């Protein structure tokens, strides 16, 4: 988890999408890296997230991005 942004990958849904590997090339700021059995989140990078939406639009069931500086009620980006 970053200071301002949190990116979550849901294992089960990822598996259904061939380990979410698409995300690695999809993310313009390299938040996703090669992990065991698929993509993993590079926690060092998550604060670079531009909230572009490419990841959660591509795999809406598998990816969740939260802005930690927004109240929880409206936190889902």
């Amino acid at each position, binding site marked *: 988890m970053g*200071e*301002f942004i949190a990116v979550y990958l849901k294992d089960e849904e990822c598996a259904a999408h061939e380990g979410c590997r698409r995300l690695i090339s999809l993310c313009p700021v390299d938040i996703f890296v090669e992990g065991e059995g698929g993509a993993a989140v590079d926690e060092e990078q998550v604060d670079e997230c531009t909230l572009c939406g490419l990841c959660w639009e591509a795999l809406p069931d598998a990816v969740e991005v939260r802005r930690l500086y927004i109240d929880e009620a409206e936190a889902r980006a």
Partner: protein
Amino acid sequence: MRLYEHEGKTLLEQAGITVPKGTLVSSGSAADAESAAGAATFPAAVKSQVLTGGRMKAGGIAFAEDADQLNSELTRLLGSEIRGHRVETVLVEPRTQFDREFYLGITYDSAAKSAVAVFSQAGGIDVEQAGAAVKAEIPLLLPASGFRFKELLASAGLQGRLLSGMTGVFTKLAGLFRDYDCILAEINPLVLTPEGKLVALDVHVELDDDALYRHADLVKQFGLEGRDADARERSPLERKAEEIDSADHRGVAGRMVEFPGNLGLLIGGGGASLTAFDAVQRHGGKPANYCEIGGNPSVWKVKELTKLLLSREDVERIAVIMNVVSNTRVDLVARGVVKGILELGLDPAEKIAIFRIPGAWEEDGFALLRKYGVPYADRTVSIDQAAKMAVAGAGGER
């Protein structure tokens, strides 16, 4: 990037403009000095090579009647300081006798959005005060055409052979200006010798830093790589800022110049950095630095620059001020500044005097700043007001 006189003269010579045949003497090179004394034609002009104007008045230019006097002047000048610039090299030229001196210059007029040619029959020292200059816009998309210069020079009263000769020099100077992406090329004075020759005795050439990549030959020829634009030695902090900027291609967070104040500045936005810097000073603040951020720098880049600024023990707080941004994201800059301060174990609410960047993604940026209690201002607060707040420590909303 301003060139030394001898470098400018090399360009003039390559362009076909007559310059005195000079010899360069470097600091600490006895062989150079001996060679110059042996080869010199007397009387000789002895000219310190420093990147500043007014060298004659500051004692940076002397004349020698013989070899002894030349050696004496070389000893005096080499290693000395002229207007704060250390003299590392001296140009020795035959002193040129002349009947008249002129000023020729080409630069850009940002208001006219065009290159302009300026000519005065009153060249030499204090030409700016002499007045009586004529100028004309010179389109330089295509190679320079002589007739425009002839019209300009004729309007200044030149006639006959002098008009033709001067037209040729001006056209060549314009070609140089265009070919080397100059922002200024001026000859002052261009003199008319008793033999009727036009000779450039001094030249001031400034290249566009952003176009230097197109002139690898020139960079190599004059060793411009790593030369500071104003020939001032960069401080370790300035060099580190440059490293940070070049380590990440995203956006700009650079052009750092250190000052001895206690208010760090993260500023930028279409000239707003100069405005903010001046405003801080006008309200009695003491900037610790000048810098330029823009073009949507990464969070990492802003974070590292913030940490760098606060690494100076005398920097108490920082002010983050930009114009209304469209291609830079407010939230990403806010993340970078806050993260940098947090990584230093400090409190953003205490360290940020004011954050005034309105524009793209400002809702997110301001939400983030609110979370950390950082004083911020939107576009209803001017840059000047924000600078005043930063200096007074009054802050904005939190």
